[in-house]
């Protein structure tokens, strides 16, 4: 329910409240779904989906009908695998064959698993796993093959880790190990989903030819989670931050949490964040390959949440003390912005990247590297949505000769203008002259014209008395002329 604290928060952050309301009121799923037509089995599957992950369930439920069920089952199957792997109460000799053969279990009618410890939060999913297996039979064989292949590889990867005593003792050693771990738990998911999208004709097949992109999609999400969950994982006695990184800053993993090592811990977290951030531009590149709106939303929303989470964790010592989260208002705003188009998602990435840049500490060992990574996000965005076009060519001279030619041209142009003006004036003068001469020959009285003109101008300006005098004057002149 709404707590007084959150009411106070939203009073001072009306923009976030606005985002929440906007999302709730205006957001319509791309594909409407009629739940009444679902079978009992399927309803149960959706029930588990909602139980296991609220955040993922929301985006999965809005997927294109073609992929809704396959992706739901894919998710539940991997969650089942994860629940076996995670459970420290199951002995290794029991765990390993299940992990390694999970792809075959998917075809065993009625298979269930009841040996999870009572505290395992998704144990019920495995208790009723027969419903998943039943539904799995009904999806297209092509999707089934993809899901089985990924399940097999992930299960074996997990079994390898479970077998690795050193890993259990000290956690993850090198950055390579760290990335390999993230590959098994997330990179493979990226691959599986991409293959499903392409198979359904909802994504560009070129995505399969650039496997580093789908790998980065998974790596980015997983690395952000690992970075954020440092405290939670410590409490659960798990370590995913690689030794290769933390050992540069402190001597033992526990030292990270000592108050006197605050600055070192922050520097170390920066390096974790930097490592994740190097994947960001690949993620944008990947999103450019998606063709269908619901698939785009499905992929983009977790990514923008991830970069916002990175921003929330960056230079924030709280991550060593509690679970840092983005606010609900921020999350709703991100969902609104991530369910439109790639350009807007690029803007979101750029916005958070700049927020990170503003907090970047020049005395952090990874200061310039972080800055460069942020620059790369911005440059990548510019390369797909350029804000500047090549400017109009002002025809600057390209060589001395061209410059001289241009100068000469300008000089000539000026003289041309002078000549032209002179010619016009001369022509007018000659014609005027000719006309006056002809008029003179024909007996025109210029003296009268001149006198009249003088008179009228004089009248106009008030120098001379009008009328009578003037008439008199004309007479005088006329008489004179007759002489």
């Amino acid at each position: 329910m709404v707590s007084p604290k959150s009411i106070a928060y939203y009073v001072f952050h009306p923009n976030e409240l606005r985002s929440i309301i906007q999302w709730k009121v205006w957001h319509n799923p791309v594909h409407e779904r009629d739940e009444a037509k679902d079978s009992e089995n399927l309803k149960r599957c959706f029930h588990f989906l909602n139980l296991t992950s609220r955040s993922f369930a929301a985006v999965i439920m809005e997927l294109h009908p073609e992929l809704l069920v396959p992706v739901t089952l894919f998710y539940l199957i991997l969650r089942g695998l994860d629940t076996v792997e995670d459970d420290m109460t199951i002995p290794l000799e029991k765990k390993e064959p299940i992990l390694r053969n999970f792809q075959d279990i998917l075809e065993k009618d009625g298979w269930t698993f009841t040996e999870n410890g009572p505290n395992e939060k998704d144990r019920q999913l495995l208790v009723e796993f027969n419903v998943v297996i039943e539904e799995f039979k009904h999806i297209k064989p092509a999707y089934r093959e993809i899901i089985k292949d990924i399940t097999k590889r992930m299960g074996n990867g997990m079994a390898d880790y479970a077998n690795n005593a050193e890993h259990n003792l000290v956690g993850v050693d090198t950055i390579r190990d760290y990335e390999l771990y993230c590959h098994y738990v997330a990179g493979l998911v990226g691959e599986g989903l991409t293959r499903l999208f392409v198979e359904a004709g909802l994504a560009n097949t070129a995505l399969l030819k650039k496997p580093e992109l789908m790998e980065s999609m998974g790596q980015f999400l997983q690395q952000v989670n690992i970075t954020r969950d440092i405290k939670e994982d410590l409490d659960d006695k798990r370590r995913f931050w690689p030794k290769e990184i933390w050992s540069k800053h402190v001597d033992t993993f526990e030292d990270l949490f000592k108050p006197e090592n605050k600055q070192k811990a922050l520097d170390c977290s920066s390096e974790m964040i930097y490592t994740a951030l190097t994947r960001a531009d690949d993620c944008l590149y990947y999103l450019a390959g998606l063709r269908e709106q619901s698939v785009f939303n499905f992929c983009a929303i977790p990514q923008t949440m991830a970069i916002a989470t990175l921003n929330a964790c960056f230079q924030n010592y709280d991550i060593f003390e509690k679970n840092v989260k983005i606010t609900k208002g921020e999350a709703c705003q991100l969902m609104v912005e991530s369910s439109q188009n790639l350009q807007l998602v690029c803007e979101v990435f750029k916005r958070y990247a700049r927020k990170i840049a503003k907090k970047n500490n020049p005395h952090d060992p990874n200061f310039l590297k972080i800055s460069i990574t942020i620059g790369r996000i911005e440059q990548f965005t510019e390369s797909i949505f350029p804000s500047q076009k090549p400017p109009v060519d002002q025809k600057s001279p390209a060589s001395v000769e061209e410059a001289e030619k241009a100068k000469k041209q300008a000089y000539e142009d000026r003289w041309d203008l002078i000549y032209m003006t002179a010619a016009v004036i001369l022509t007018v003068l000659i014609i005027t002259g000719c006309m006056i001469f002809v008029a003179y020959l024909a007996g025109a009285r210029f003296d009268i014209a001149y006198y009249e003109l003088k008179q009228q101008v004089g009248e106009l300006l008030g120098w001379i008395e009008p009328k009578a005098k003037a008439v008199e004057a004309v007479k005088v002149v006329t008489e004179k002329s007759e002489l």
Partner: protein
Amino acid sequence: MSASKFQTLGTVVVVGGCGFLGNHIVSYIVKRHPQTQIAVLDLRTNSNRHTSSTVSYHDGDITDLAAMQKFFAQIKPDAVIHTASPHFNLPPAIHDKVNVEGTKNLLKASQDAGVKAFVYTSSASVIFGGAAELVNADEKWPLVTGDAQPEYYTTTKAYAETYVLEANRKPEGFLTCAIRPAGIFGEGDVQLLPKMVTAYKDGKTKYQVGDNDNLFDFTYVENVAHGHVLAVLALLSTHKFLPTVPIDTERVDGEAFFITNGEPVYFWDFARAVWHEAGDRLPLKSVWHLDTGFASMVGFFSEWAMWLVGKTPNLTRAQVRYSTLKKYHSIAKARNRLGYQPIVSLDEGVRRGVRYIIEQDEKAGQKKGQ
């Protein structure tokens, strides 16, 4: 188009090989292509000398055509890398003489001597008029010269580039291209890093102008050297297939290429990284952020005030403009056609460059102390 490590470039003349960039190009070739014979041509060759037996030094003036023709006839080089350029603050007549006439002389002498590949060091600023920002600019951007170009130096660099590119395939076996580096720094640079380090020593790191959201290209000198050598290799390999002309999208001869670190960063981030390396430990929150408009106004008044008393101002409008402007380039063309990929990262470059300055200062200090 990846070049094997010990591929020889034949005999190469490096014009300006005792200068900042030229010297790094010589070092790079000695290290990466040791079988290459290098003839360094410079106005004075008493500094930055390599001891390697493959490098010979020759005093010469590129504005003297007869001397150049004689020199080239004697060396008979396969390739020429022309990096010579006067300091940009010198009077226009010198730029005309060295950049324009000198380059023409070198082209003529190279054509006469049967040179196969001619690579010219241009500048990224040939498309930059000072006012308009450059956002991910590429080679499609037009040259900005003459009245539109505030720096006469840059105008002459652009002219020289045009002569070099126009001379391509005249005669058929003479191939040329131009490299446009942006913001070169590194060991021995006299403009970029020393000025920034001096700013730190003068206590100027407390301020910064603008929002610091302007990406800027800085390029470590060894990457620029790498770009030049890749260009020579590409031209030499095109030469082997004469008279076949490569398709337009793969062509190197007759083309210009931006070369940068491919790592544009916010302007002040670069400065702060340099200052940190030089010893600055000022916390980020102690930095004063000046609004761009306000700083321009201060710059305007300080320019006039200092003009009245005849001193150089601390802050000028040009500096404000330069530090708040987006100026970065796309190097996609160099990546695709030259196979260029920066070999030294920006942070490693900063480290090397600043340490070099500190070492030099220490040496100078010891000399004084003696």
